[in-house]
C-alpha cells in the first residue's frame, strides 16, 4: 500500500515536472569557491585579478555586507582621479545650460532674449557657438538630410584615436569648443564606465544602473540633454539602497522625468490658462489649447510600480494623469527645477485604484498617488521579480519571489532589505543561478576591462563599443529601459561584435585603453584561467590549442580568444 502511494506521488511529481518549469536546480547549493566567484560575477561588474583572494580573506558574508553599505567602503583613488576633470558631473542643470548651452539657448542669447554668460571662457564659447549656429542656419539645405547620428564611422574612429592620446583636461577643451553639448554626453558616458570599472562600491554601481534603467530617461530628448546628469546624481543615486517610496518621489519630481514622459505639459483642460503672464502670453497659450497628457501616468503604473498586469485600467491612467496636472518644470531648456503650478491643476475629485482623492486638492493629490502605488502589493511583487531576474536568473523560482515580495512589504519597500534577503537566500547561491545569465553589453565590456586589468584613460571608445553591442548608454529611447534577459543579447550581430571587441581589446586596438599583454602566461589553460577565474570549458581550450598549433601566438591573443569565448559571455 505504502509502495503504491510513493509510486503515485513520484508519478505526480514527474507529471508536474514535465509541465511546470523545473526549479529544483535552485535548491542545489554551490561549492565554496563557486560561491565567491558567483557573488563577484553578480554583484560586481566582473572580478579583477586578486578579487577572489581578497573576498576569501575577508569572508564572503562580510564582503556582501560591505557592498550593501557602500558608505563604509573607501573609494578607489583611481576612480576619483578620473572623475575629477569631468566638470559637468557636479554642475546643476542651470549651470550646465549656461556652460554647455543647447542650440535654443544660444539662439535666445543671439536674439538678446537671454543674457550672455558672465564668465569670459563660457562667453567666448557661446560666441563661437552663436557663429556656428548662424553658419548652420544659412546652410540649412545641405544639412537637412543628416539624420544619422555620429557621422562617418571612419572619421569618428580617427577622432577617437586623436582624443585618446590627448591629456584629459586638454581633451575636454577641444571637445567643449567644438561641440559643447557633446561634453555632457561624454562626461556621463565616461563617468558611468569609470565607475563600473574602478569603483570599490561595485554593488552600488550595479544598483544605480538597475534603477536608472528602471526609471529610464532618454538623454537625446530635448532638455534631457542638460537634465540627465542631475537625474542620475540627485534622483537615482541617493536612493538606490533606500526606501522605494523616496526613489519614486525623486523620479516623479525630477525635471528629467517630467520632461521625458511629458508630464510638464500635463495640465487640466478646464482651468483658465491666462493669469500672471498678461494678455499677450495668454493669447499665445490659448492657441495651443493645452490639456491632459497621459504619458507619465501610464508608464508610472506600467513600468515604474504596478507592472502591466498590476490591476489598473485606462480610467485609472486618466485619474492619475489628472492628479499630476501642474507638476511641471520652470524653463526646462535653461535647466529649471521642478515646480508645482496650482493654476493648471485639476481640482475635481479623482478615484485612483478605488481610492477616493477628494476635490479641491493640490500638489498632495499626486503625493497620494505615489503613496498608493508605492505600497500596492503589485508593486512589491513587480519590483521583487525584476530584481530577481536581474541578479538571480531569467526565470526565478516563485518561492524566492514570494520571499522578496514579503520582505518588500514588511519593510515598507526598503530596497537594501530586499537585496539582503536575496543575497541570503539559497536560491541566489544555487546551481540554478550559477552562470545562468548572459552578460549585458555593459557587463561584458566592463568585465573584460576588469579581468585584463586594463588601464582606461579615455572611456568613449568603450561607449562606442557598447552602442555596437546594442546598448548605447543613456540612449534607450523607450521608457522600458534595457532588458536583462538572455534572449535580448544573444544574436548573431551582437555575438560577432563581442568577439571583435575581445580581440581588439587584447591587441590594444581600442583607443584610450592599455592592456599589458606580458601579464598573460604562455600556457593556454593558465592564460584562460587568468581572465575567467575558473577552468575554461574543454571545448574552448581545445579550440584555442588547435589554433596555436598552426601559428605563433602573439601576446594577448589567447586572452582575446577567451574573452570572446562562450565561457566569458556568462556570469
Amino acid at each position, binding site marked *: 500500500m505504502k509502495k503504491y502511494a510513493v509510486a503515485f506521488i513520484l508519478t505526480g511529481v514527474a507529471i508536474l515536472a514535465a509541465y511546470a518549469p523545473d526549479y529544483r536546480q535552485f535548491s542545489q547549493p554551490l561549492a565554496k569557491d563557486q560561491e565567491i566567484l558567483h557573488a563577484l560575477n553578480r554583484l560586481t561588474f566582473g572580478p579583477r585579478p586578486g578579487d577572489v583572494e581578497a573576498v576569501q580573506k575577508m569572508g564572503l558574508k562580510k564582503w556582501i555586507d560591505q557592498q550593501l553599505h557602500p558608505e563604509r567602503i573607501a573609494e578607489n583613488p583611481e576612480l576619483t582621479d578620473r572623475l575629477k576633470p569631468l566638470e559637468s558631473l557636479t554642475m546643476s542643470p542651470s549651470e550646465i545650460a549656461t556652460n554647455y548651452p543647447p542650440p535654443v539657448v544660444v539662439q535666445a542669447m543671439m536674439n538678446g532674449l537671454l543674457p550672455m554668460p558672465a564668465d569670459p571662457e563660457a562667453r567666448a564659447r557661446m560666441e563661437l557657438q552663436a557663429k556656428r549656429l548662424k553658419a548652420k542656419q544659412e546652410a540649412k539645405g545641405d544639412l537637412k538630410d543628416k539624420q544619422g547620428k555620429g557621422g562617418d564611422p571612419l572619421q569618428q574612429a580617427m577622432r577617437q584615436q586623436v582624443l585618446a592620446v590627448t591629456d584629459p583636461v586638454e581633451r575636454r577643451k577641444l571637445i567643449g569648443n567644438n561641440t559643447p553639448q557633446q561634453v555632457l554626453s561624454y562626461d556621463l558616458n565616461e563617468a558611468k564606465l569609470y565607475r563600473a570599472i574602478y569603483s570599490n562600491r561595485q554593488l552600488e554601481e550595479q544598483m544605480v544602473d538597475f534603477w536608472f534603467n528602471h526609471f529610464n530617461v532618454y538623454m537625446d530628448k530635448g532638455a534631457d540633454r542638460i537634465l540627465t546628469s542631475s537625474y542620475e546624481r540627485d534622483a537615482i543615486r541617493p536612493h538606490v539602497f533606500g526606501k522605494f517610496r523616496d526613489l519614486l518621489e525623486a523620479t516623479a519630481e525630477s525635471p528629467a522625468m517630467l520632461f521625458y514622459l511629458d508630464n510638464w505639459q500635463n495640465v487640466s483642460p478646464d482651468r483658465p490658462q491666462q493669469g500672471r503672464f498678461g494678455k499677450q502670453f495668454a493669447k499665445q497659450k490659448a492657441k495651443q489649447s493645452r490639456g491632459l497628457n497621459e504619458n507619465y501616468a501610464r508608464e508610472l503604473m506600467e513600468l515604474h510600480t504596478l507592472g502591466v498586469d498590476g490591476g489598473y485600467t485606462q480610467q485609472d491612467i486618466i485619474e492619475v494623469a489628472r492628479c499630476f496636472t501642474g507638476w511641471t518644470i520652470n524653463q526646462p531648456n535653461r535647466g529649471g527645477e521642478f515646480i508645482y503650478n496650482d493654476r493648471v491643476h485639476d481640482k475635481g475629485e479623482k478615484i485612483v485604484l478605488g481610492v477616493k482623492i477628494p476635490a479641491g486638492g493640490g500638489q498632495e493629490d499626486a503625493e497620494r498617488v505615489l503613496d498608493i502605488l508605492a505600497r500596492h502589493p503589485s508593486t512589491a511583487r513587480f519590483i521583487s521579480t525584476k530584481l530577481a531576474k536581474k541578479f538571480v536568473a531569467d526565470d526565478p523560482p516563485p518561492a524566492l519571489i514570494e520571499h522578496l515580495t514579503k520582505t518588500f512589504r514588511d519593510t515598507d519597500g526598503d530596497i537594501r532589505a530586499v537585496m539582503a534577503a536575496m543575497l541570503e537566500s539559497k536560491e541566489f547561491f544555487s546551481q540554478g543561478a550559477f552562470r545562468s545569465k548572459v552578460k549585458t553589453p555593459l557587463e561584458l565590456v566592463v568585465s573584460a576591462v576588469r579581468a585584463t586589468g586594463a588601464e582606461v584613460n579615455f572611456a568613449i571608445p568603450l561607449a562606442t563599443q557598447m552602442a555596437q553591442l546594442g546598448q548605447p548608454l543613456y540612449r534607450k529611447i523607450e521608457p522600458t529601459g534595457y532588458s536583462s534577459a538572455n534572449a535580448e543579447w*544573444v544574436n548573431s550581430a551582437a555575438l560577432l561584435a563581442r568577439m571583435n571587441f575581445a580581440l581588439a581589446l587584447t591587441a590594444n586596438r581600442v583607443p584610450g585603453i592599455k592592456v599589458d599583454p606580458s601579464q598573460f602566461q604562455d600556457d593556454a589553460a593558465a592564460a584562460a584561467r587568468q581572465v575567467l577565474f575558473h577552468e575554461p*570549458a574543454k571545448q574552448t581550450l581545445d579550440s584555442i590549442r588547435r589554433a596555436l598549433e598552426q601559428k605563433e601566438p602573439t601576446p594577448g591573443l589567447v586572452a582575446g*580568444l577567451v574573452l570572446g569565448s562562450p565561457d566569458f559571455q556568462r556570469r
Partner: protein
Amino acid sequence: MTSRRLFLKSSALAMFGVGAAPAWLSRALYAADAPSPRKKILVAIFQRGAVDGLNMVIPFGEKNYYNLRPNLAIPKPDGTEDAAIDLDGFFGLHPALSPLKPIYDAGHMAIVQAVGSPDPTRSHFDAQDYMESGTPGRKATADGWLNRSLLAQPNPSPVRAVSLGTALSRSMRGHNEAVAIANLNDFKIRDTRGAGTFESMYDNTLDQVLNGAGRETFEAVKLMQSIQQQPYAPSGGVQYPNGPLGQSLMQIARLIKSDVGLEVAFAEMGGWDTHFNEVGARPTQGQLANLLGQFGNALAAFYQDLGDRMADVSVVTMSEFGRTARENGSRGTDHGHANVMFAFGGGVRGGKVHGEWPGLEQEQLYEQRDLQLTTDFRDVLGELVVRHLGNPRVTSVFPGYDQPKFRGIVTG
C-alpha cells in the same frame, strides 16, 4: 486576367512613361501565368512607438476629423504641398509621404485602414510584443510570427531570415534559423587570427543558447564574405535616406540582389510616440512630418532600387496601435487603438484603400476616443504569408486565429 493586365499596363504607363517600365512589369504583363523561379520575399517594417495613422493617411472626407484635431489636422487636398495628397476622394496621404504616391498610382501599394490588434492594451511594450509574437493577449508565446512563417526546408540558407539591427527582433525569434545583422560589411570577425577558433568554440560548446546562435552566426558569416567583396551601388543612382530605416532597407535590397536565399526580413524605425509637439508651426511640418519624410523616402528608395526584383517582394508596415482621434493638450496625441498599414510590392493589389472605415463621430469611436478596429492585423499578415510566401498553414503562424478574413490585398 485581362482587366488586371489593362490595369497594370495603364498604371505602368502612368508611372514610368512608355518604354521606361521596369522589366518585371512587362513580365507581369505578358507572362503573368509563368511560375516565378525565385523565392518570394516578405519584408516587415515596424514603426515603434505607435505612429499616428490618422495623420499618415488622412480621412479628409470625415468632418469630425477636423473637429477633433484643431491644431493637428492636415488640410484637405488643394494641390499644394501644405495639404493631404488625394488618394480616392476621401483619404489622402500626408504630404511628407509624396514619394509613395507614384507607387500607389501604379497599383503596387495598398493601404489598409482601421487595422490593428484586437487586444485593448495601450502599453507600447505589450502591444509590440503581441504584434510581433502574432498572438494578441498571449504573453507566453516564445517565438515570433515571421519565424513561424518560414516553411521547413532540407538545406535552408543561413540568411533566410534576417533582422536588421544589433538585436534579433521579437518577430524573428524562434526555432528556424534567423540572424541579426547590423551592417553587412561589418558582419565578420575582423581579426583573421580569431575567425576559425571562435567558430570551433561556438560549434562545440555545451552551452545550448550560445551554441545555437553561434552556429547560425558563422554560417551566415561565410555566406556574407562574397557579398562583402564588392561595394554596393543601388540601381540607377537611387539615394537612400541616412536614417536607420533607409540604411536597413538598403542592406535588405543588397541581400535580395545577392541571391543568398533571403525569405523574410525585418527592419524598424522608432520615434513615433508623439505625445508632445507632433506638428510644427503648420500641421504639415514638425516631428511627425520629419519622421514620415524619412519613412516615405526610405520605402520609395527601396522600391526603385529593387526595380524588377520587386516582382518577388512584398513589404508590409505596422505599428503597435494608433493614437487618440482627438489631439491632446500638448499638440500631440496619446495612445489609441486601430491604425493604418501599408503593403506594397509585385503581388500586391494596390492603388486602393482597403478595409471598412468605422467613422470618427463620437459614438463611432472605440471607448469614445480612438479609431475602431475593423481589420485584424493578422488578416493582413496572414494573407501575405499564405498568398505571397505560399505557406498555407496560417493557423500555425498565428496560433489561435482560425479564420482569418483575407482582404484581397494580394493578387492571386
